[in-house]
Structures are given as structure tokens and as C-alpha cells.
């Protein structure tokens, strides 16, 4: 039966296309009658940069099997530099997907100009096949995976990652406040380690939301060394995001602080 359902399954893919280039390219593709699979549901946005990691991760949580992002070629952005940011953000999204255990290949960023109708059809065809090979996304059904994606989602929303990724371009291209241009590799290293940290911290919060957990338990579930888990808990407690439960025996447990909203 599994094979049968596998055979009947069709990947659900969401496409975000920028108004000025890729959406226009898709239009041209239609005009030119290039065919491509029906799996992509396109959403028009003014610029690819509108798409936050949160949106993408949310879509994956909601059951999408793949997300395609289309923007103008580098240097062509209608809004001058939007796609540079998209590029940096997609790098972050892929890192977060990797962290969470979702195949990063479920997300693809492509530059499609208004004159590249044919290219657009090839991209959609190719991406659909790629997602088909990956099989149905397990995010919705697999509880463990879902919590990891949720953690990735939370991590993507942290000010730290937003700030680092948001500033990356200026720091590398235009120079920082000291008029130094940062080495992109060095900055990538900083962002990568921040991504890993923020993801793992978000996962700790996610896992400790419903029940208190010990460092060892978290380490086991997350497959992260326990000393590292503890260091994350230190940082989270500095931010007042997790609290120690009264320890019974020798193993304290921690519970996420659910922030009370407006009554």
C-alpha cells in the first residue's frame, strides 16, 4: 500500500515570485507555451526579499513539500539590493533546515529574469523532480521533526540572527562603522555559529515547553553533547527564557517560561 500511495502522491510546492523579474518570467513562459509540472502554486510578491525564513518554515510546517523562491538576477533587483538580502537569508534558511533535519534541497532559490521564460519552465520541472525524489515531507506527521522545524522557525525570528543576516551585506560590501570591509568567510563563520546556537536554544525551549526536561534528556533527544546543552541553558536563563524546576535527586530539570501576554 505504501508504494501505491507513494505513486499517487504529488509534491506540493509553493513558489514565491518577485513581481518584476521571476513573475514576469513565468508569464513569458506561459506566453511562450513552455510546459512544466502543475505542482507549483505561485504567489506573487513585490520582491523576493519579502520572504522571511519564518514564512518558509511555516509553509513547511503546514505541509508543503518544497518551496521555490524566484528573484531578479543579482544586480537587476528593482529595489536595488533586495535579492542580495534574499540570497543571504536563503543561506540562513538552508542552514536552519539542515539543523532541523529537513532536507535543504526542499528549498530552492533561482534568479529568473523577465525574459527567461524557458529557463523558468526548466527550473520548475527540475525542482519538482528533485522534490519528488525526496518524497513527501515528514514535517507535519513526525512530531520530532515538527518540533525541530518549529525551533528553526523560532531561531529565525531571533533578533540576533535577523540582525546578523540583515547587516551582512553592508558589512561585507560597504564596510562597517569603522570603515573596514569584513571578510565574508569570517562573517559567514560568525553567522553559522550563531545559527547553530540559536537553533539549539530554540529547540531546547520547544522541547521543554510541555514538560520539564533535564540536560541529559535534552542532549539525548537533540543529539547534542550535554555540556553544550548546559551552556545553552545558561544563556537562556540569562535571558529569562527558561527556569530551573526544583531538582529531585541529582538531576535538575528545566521548563520553558511561557511569557504571559496581555490579559
Amino acid at each position, binding site marked *: 500500500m505504501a508504494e501505491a500511495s507513494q505513486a499517487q502522491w504529488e509534491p506540493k510546492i509553493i513558489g514565491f515570485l518577485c513581481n518584476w523579474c521571476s513573475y514576469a518570467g513565468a508569464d513569458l513562459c506561459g506566453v511562450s507555451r513552455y510546459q512544466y509540472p502543475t505542482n507549483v502554486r505561485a504567489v506573487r510578491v513585490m520582491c523576493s526579499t519579502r520572504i522571511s525564513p519564518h514564512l518558509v518554515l511555516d509553509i513547511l510546517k503546514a505541509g508543503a513539500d518544497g518551496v521555490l523562491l524566484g528573484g531578479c538576477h543579482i544586480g537587476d533587483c528593482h529595489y536595488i539590493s533586495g535579492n542580495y538580502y534574499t540570497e543571504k537569508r536563503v543561506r540562513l534558511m538552508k542552514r536552519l533546515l539542515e539543523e532541523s533535519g529537513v532536507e535543504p534541497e526542499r528549498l530552492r532559490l533561482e534568479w529568473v529574469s523577465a525574459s527567461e521564460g524557458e529557463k523558468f519552465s526548466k527550473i520548475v520541472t527540475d525542482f519538482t523532480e528533485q522534490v519528488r525524489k525526496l518524497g513527501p515531507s515528514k514535517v507535519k506527521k513526525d512530531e520530532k521533526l515538527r518540533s525541530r522545524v518549529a525551533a528553526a522557525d523560532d531561531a529565525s525570528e531571533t533578533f540576533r540572527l535577523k540582525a*546578523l543576516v540583515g*547587516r551582512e551585506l*553592508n558589512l561585507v560590501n560597504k564596510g*562597517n562603522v*569603522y570603515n573596514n570591509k569584513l571578510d565574508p568567510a569570517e562573517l559567514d563563520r560568525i553567522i553559522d555559529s*550563531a545559527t547553530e*546556537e540559536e537553533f539549539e536554544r530554540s529547540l531546547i525551549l520547544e522541547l521543554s515547553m510541555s514538560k520539564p526536561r533535564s540536560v541529559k534528556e535534552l542532549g539525548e533527544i537533540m543529539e547534542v553533547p550535554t*555540556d553544550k546543552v*548546559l551552556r545553552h541553558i545558561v*544563556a537562556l536563563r540569562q535571558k529569562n527564557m527558561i527556569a530551573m524546576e526544583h531538582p529531585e535527586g541529582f538531576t535538575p530539570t528545566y521548563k520553558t517560561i511561557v511569557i504571559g501576554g496581555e490579559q
Partner: protein
Amino acid sequence: MAVTDKVGAVMVVGGGISGLQSALDLADSGYKVYLVEKLPSIGGVMAQLDKTFPTNDCAMCIMAPKLVAAGRHHNIQLITNADIAIVDGQAGNFTVTVRQRAFRVDPTKCTGCGSCAQKCPVETADEYNEGSKVRKAIFVRYPQAVPLVYSIDPEKCIGCGICSEECKAKAVEYDQKEKVFEIQVGSIIVSPGFEEFNARLKPEYGYGVYKNVVTSIEFERMLSATGPYFGAVLRPSDGDIPEKIAFIQCVGSRDEHCGNEYCSSVCCMYSVKEAIIAKEHGGSIKPSIFYMDLRAFGKEFDEYYNRAKNEYGIRFVRSRIAAVSEDPKTRNLILKYTDNGEPKEEVFNLVVLAVGLTPAADAETLSRVMKFRLNDDGFCQTGVFTPVETSRPGVFVSGAFSSPKDIPMTVAEASGAAAKAGTEITSARGTLVTKKEYPKEKDVAGQEARIGVFVCHCGINIGGVVNVPEVMEYAKTLPGVVYAEQNLYTCSQDAQERIKGKVEEHKLNRVVVASCTPRTHEPLFQNTIKEAGLNAYLFEMANIRDQCSWIHMHEPKAATKKAKDLVRMAIAKSRLLEPLENLTIKVNQQALVIGGGVTGMTAAIELARQGVRVHLVEKEKELGGNLRKLHYLPSGDDPMEHVKRLEGEVRAEKNVTVHLGTTAKNIEGYVGNFKTTLSDGKEIEHGVVILAIGGQEHKPEGEYLYGKNKDVKTLLEFKEMLKKGEAKGKSYVFVQCVGSREGDHPNCSRVCCTGTMTAATKVKDKDPQADVYVLFRDIRTYGFREKYYKEAAQKGVRFVRFDDERKPVVEDKGGKLEVKVTEEDTGKQLVLRPDYLVLASGTRPQHDAEELAPMLKVPMTKEGFFLEAHMKLRPVDFATEGVYLAGLAHGPKFVDESISQALATVSRAMTVLSKTTLEAEGIVASVDESLCDGCGICVPTCEYKALEIVAHKDDPKKKMVDVNVGLCKGCGACVGACPAGALTQKGFRDEQILAMIDAALEQSKKQEVK
């Protein structure tokens, strides 16, 4: 100005507890102080400590007031993030070139709100927490940091620009450059502190490799509520609570393999403390301390050690740990050691390495730049009679920079160095300090309250949560409020000008600021309204940040409601505020020093050189005290020579009047105004008293045949024999801890071990063939004194450790002594037949202490020594102002330590004697004479001895209490105790407090409408 002119300013290099104490003393006695610190904020290592031994006081709680005082003192200029580049000139007139690294934040604009750090996306290891927590690239070292100015870590900043955008005060300046400038000072004090020993240099303990091996300072941070685990003790490998913790002592101390042969003096005690605190944190924790000698040599330290053993059940194992290995599965640690000769292995969940103290990281640079010498171990060189002097005149030293030492000794040295620094430039005292002038105070008596309310946004710290405009509008509706406004930062310089303007414009007679905490900001606003001609006590504050917006960040509506309540309460009190007067007390600028030993003479000479008339009272017929009896000092210096030198100096000082063969019969009065009657009937008026009455060697009558056999001597008696060449024999036995660490004298006498080394070495020097045995419990040759222990051992002195349960037994076998002792480690019995038995008997207080204590209303310890105001931070003060103590009267100690304390009392005394008047507190207690019936219940509640029962003013047959406002500190203890409702505290009257409570409970109709 001529080169020889003295400059009335002092530079203090190093802003730890030592530098702080020096700076505060000097600034309070008429000198301008530049406090230079290499880190961006002052506080040093003490600011990192959780608790302090032997009182288990919270370190930050006792230190913070000094930090704030130094930060706000108008005669102290803090120069942080700075190094000393060049020192030119000579004593009395130095030109110091200072290099100050860029903060990249304008300290005059930064309000310390912390919005920048919250948003900074760069995380890095937090040095204050020894890397166990995270901080941002823009940071303050710790939350209570002084100055509270953020700075950018140039190594970590990626230059993203976010902090600048976040900063509403526009304080961030990325292009700020390093500043190099020159400062003229008369004296310099160096107190850069120490570095912790790098535990990686002892690879056998696995630090840096095994996660669960931590250093003592890391463990200290772990114990702290502001530490990584918020005060819980957890294993870094997996977050479990460790059941078994091993403390390994002497890591990087007493160890020739790593080059540090000296003892670090403090590790035994801090480990005992850390073990006790760990135990208090979790009863199931079982600490074990592995040590060689447990060196609890300070005042009441042994009692603390005994409590650790007996009350807390901490296990002490005498053994040096050879190596630590890890079980890779559990990450537990396996310790290998020998116990009574047996090799053992034991598993622990956590290992704490008691790392030693090594010279300050910049010791060599400082010595090169300032041109003073370091000793062989790399610490600053000092002499036994010059404990706070470097080899360069005019440059003084204090704290752990000259030798590893604890906080009380450091604080005493810091005051001592301040005294020396002040003496150098006495002629320039008062020339560089400023006194603030205020306009004449407006008379607001009988006026209706006209309250002005200033509500602060604190950037977004308050305004981002609390609806500030709404709070401000609400304030306007409250009775008595005639004006209200909101400010982006009410503490900014321009806001002060606005407040002054509004006081004028609206004829305000009360001011309320709703912003942050009064603990840091009240003095600022009080100063502002004083500049506007209002009495400082017509000010009230509502804390709507630290205790409202910051803790209700996700409940803006509720936070706004609470802010209104807090403002309503402050306004309710402010309506009832009244101007208070700071009474002035005249100061008699003479001093009385009781005791003419080395301590008293040192204090008298130093005071005299600072221009003070001194009466030095000595009960014996000659000066010199115990120093005359020492004969030998371990350093080789001659004590008699020093006595003669001091005597000559005292005689030559025309400011000193010596009263020999005299005692103080009666002392009356209070700070600035004492009157003393001497035993010869003379009367002396003076402003301060220094108690330097010394101590005495215990005569252990009957013990070990002392007094029964002529060959049994005390250590001092034996030294005299040695000096006179009367000690003729082939065999000597010394017994330690005679009358110390036992019975009614549970504490260590501190000096006997080293004294024994000196005598034993002398014997061996004279006759290398002599048999010399030292029978001991722990050898406590702390600090650099360890080398005398080593020297004695090298010369063939034999050491036999005995258990306090099995003390040596001495018998007289036909006139010949026989000593039987069981060696603790092996259990073997030794029989010795010495020609002389020398008893290292303890130091005891002088009996006159018991007569002086009630006269001066000062407390004593159980053992009869004087008890200072605070064991850690006020080692030479009493709670009673104007009375100080030093030397053996405080407890057993060495000559150099007594000299440091003597100098410290001078510095403390000069904070009083340098002034003609003292200003009393405004918020003092006052008594309603018609209600007081003189019951006296209040009197013992006053720690400052400000209350006295006197004849009633109206009816001399009745009694009443009199408040000495000169001594009252404004705590209100007596008010709470008064059964008649006769006592009240100004500024905290019942009506004022009740008005706040009523306001808090009031259901404001206006609020409900909103």
C-alpha cells in the same frame, strides 16, 4: 610652578577593592584622586566573588556602596580602560602619561540603560563569569559596574551599527580614538592586584580537557546568583548536581615544579568557604578538601574551619593529589592519592582546583614604567618595616601586588598606602579639591505643596513598556501636583537644567522623578534641586524601570497601572516632605594614640607628619612594646634597631607628646570631640582615638612542664636565650599550637610557625649537628614565609606532625626531659630527649582591653581582642566613628602587618582630622521630649552608640533619651524599638510612610475611569 612644589593629588593605579579604599580615604582627606583602571569598570576580583570568609557576607552587597561612593565622589576622577605609559618626576611631583583606550561610547552621554547590548547580535564569552556565560560586543563587565558606561570590545565588534541606532542618547561613537594625556600628581599608589594561576600548567589535573574540572574562581561564579547556573552547583558536562566534589589545594602554590614556591595565603580559606556555600546550596553535596596544611591563620578563621568540619560535615583529607583522570562514559573524575601511606583511588563528580595567586599580568610593565623593583617571585618588593613602600620614593603599593593576601589585609594596606601617599604631600592638602557651592536655600515652611513630576522614558527601557505620556497625564491630576513632564532621559545633563528651570517657573517646592532606582540616581537629582535652591530632602523618586517596566515587559497595561500607583505613592509622600538640616559638628584636630609599641609609634609619627598634634600614651616606662622581645625577624632585619629608630623619630617630632608610665583613666565624648583623663590627672581633648595596646605571649603555666622544669621555655624566652648565647645544647624540640587552636582559644596565633622557623634555623646555623625537632599540627608559613619553612627543612630541622587528639607527652626523668609523640601519618611513636623544649605559645590580648572597651563603647571578641566594624572591609575601624584599632590589639599578626594597620588608622583618622567640621546625616532620629519617659529600650538598638539616657529637660527628676546627631546614621532602629512613640526618623516619619501605603491601597477612581 617650580619642580620641587608638591602636588595635592594622588594617582591610584588599579581599581579593585585596594585601589577603591585608597582613593576614598584620600579623597575624603583633602586630596584629588585619579583612579586608573585597566578594565572599563572598577571593582576588580572582589566584584566576582560570591561570598567572603569568615562571615559569609555577600561580596557585592558589601562592596557596592564603596563602588558607588567612588563613582560619585567629586574629588575622585575615574580613568578606566587605561594604562600608565610614562612616569616622570619625583616624589611630591610626578608627571604621569596615561593611555586611555577608546570606549567607543561617550561616557557623558551613556546612561547605562543597556538597550544597545540587548540588540547587539555578537555574543562572546563573559570574562566576569570566567567564560561561563555570554556577553555582547558592547557591554559592561557586570550589572553593578562603575562607571555604568557601556564600551565596545574592539576585538569582537563587527561594526554592524545596530547599537548606535538603538541608543536614544546618541552615545555611541565608533570613531572614538585612544586618548593620551598627562596628569600631575604628588604620590602614586600601585594596586593592580593579582592573576589567578593558569591551571593548564598542571596538566596532571586535566583542566581544560575534562569538562568537570573547574578552577576555584569558576566555581565561585557557579555559586553566585548572578553566575551561569543562577547559584546552583552543576556539572559543566551534563548539568547534573555533583554529589561528590573534590577540592584540590595548592594548585600553582608551594610547588617548585611550576616555579611558585610561595603559599598563596588565601586558597585554604576560600576552599573551605566554597565547600560550605556549596553545601548550603544543596544538602546532598559532599565536599572533600585535599590539602597539605590547612592554613586558617587569620582572625577567627580556625573557628570557621572547625564549623566546616563539625557542623557542615565537610571532609578534609591530608594528601597531595598526584593526578586526575576521567571516566569517559560518566565524565566522573578519578583521584589518585595516598592516605596514611596507602595508595587510594576515589571517584568524584566534580573537581575544583584551588588555583594560587600569581603576580599581576602587568607587573613587569608597571615596574619598568614606574621604575620600582619586583621580588624574585615577580611581586612588588617591599620591606618588613616598609610594607606599603616600593623601591621608588613617592610610589606606594598595596594589596596582592606585594604578596598574596586576603581582603582585610589588602584593605588595611590600601589605607596604609593612602596615609603614606598623603604624608608625602601634606603641604599641598586641599589645594586641588573642590567644594561645591549651592545657592541659599528657599524657605518653604508653611507653604502648600507645589509638586513637579518628571517621568522618564529611559530611551525605550521604560517607554517601550509603560505608557509614559499616560503616567505623566495621570500625575497632573493628583493633589499638589502643579507641573508634570516627560523626558527621554531624566538623568541627562540637559534634563537637569530643565528641572531647575521648572522649579523656578512653577515655584515648585517638591520634586518627584519617576525613573530608575534611587540607589544610584537619588544623589544626582538631589544635587539638581539643591542647585535650584531647594533642600535636598524635598525630593522623592518612583522606580518605574528596575521595578516595573523591566519586570513586566510583556504586560504593558498592567505595568502602566503599576507605574501610576508608584508615582501616586511617591507624590503622597512628597506632600509631607520637609526640609532637613545636616548639622555640623566641630572637630578637635588632635589625636590620642594608646600604646607605644611599634604600632602606636608608627601611627603617632605618621599623624605628626601630617600636621596632627598627637598624645602617645604608654603604660610602660619605655616605648617599644613587644618588638623589644622578638630579637630576630625571619627576614634578617634587626627589630631592636627599628625600635631605636622609631623612638628617635617620636622624640624628634615636636607634634608628639609622649606620656610614659601612663594609662587612660576615662574617655568621654564622640567623634571630633573626645575628652580623656590620664592616670596622672592630665586632661586631653582630641578628635580621634587609636587603640594600639598590643598583645602578649601566652605563658602556658603547667603545660608541658612549663614553669616546673627550667629547660622548658616559651618561644620568646628561647629567642632571648639565643640572642644572649645562653642556649647551649645538642638537642631541641619545638611544640607548636601551645594555647592556640584548642579549648577557649580556638584560633590560630598566626606568627608562631614562622617564629619557630626563625629560631630553629638559628640553632642549626650555630650548630649544624644539633638535633632539632618541630612537633606541629599544620605548618602555617603563609605567603613568602614558606621559604623559611623550606630553609629550615633544608638545614635539617625535622618536622613531626601530631594529631590534636594525641598531643605530645613530656616527662621529667631526673631533671632530663623526655618527649613522646605519635607521628600522625605513620602512627609510630617517637621518644625524644631534648636539652630544651620550646613552646610556641599563642598570642593573647592585653588585659587593659577590658577597661578601654566600655569607655569607648567598642566591642570585643570572645578571646578578648577588639572587634572591628567589619571583618572584611573595615579592618581598622569601629562602628563608633572616630575610634580605630591596629596591631596585636586586633589579633595576632606580624610586624609588617601591624605597621600596615598602624598606617591605615592614620589614613582613616585623617578623613576626620583633615576637616574642621563634620556634616551629620539629615535623616536622623529625633525625640519628642513630651512623650519620652526615659525607659532606655532604644539604647541598645543603636549600633553607633548615638543614644544616651539623660535627665529630662523639663523635670530633672525624670529621664529621657538624647540623640547625638553626630553619631546617628539614620537607620531608624531606635524608632522601631520605642514603645512610647517618642522617637521618629526625619524623612521617614510614620505619617510619610503611611501616606505612601494609603496611596498604594487607594482605588483611584480616575484610574478606573480609564
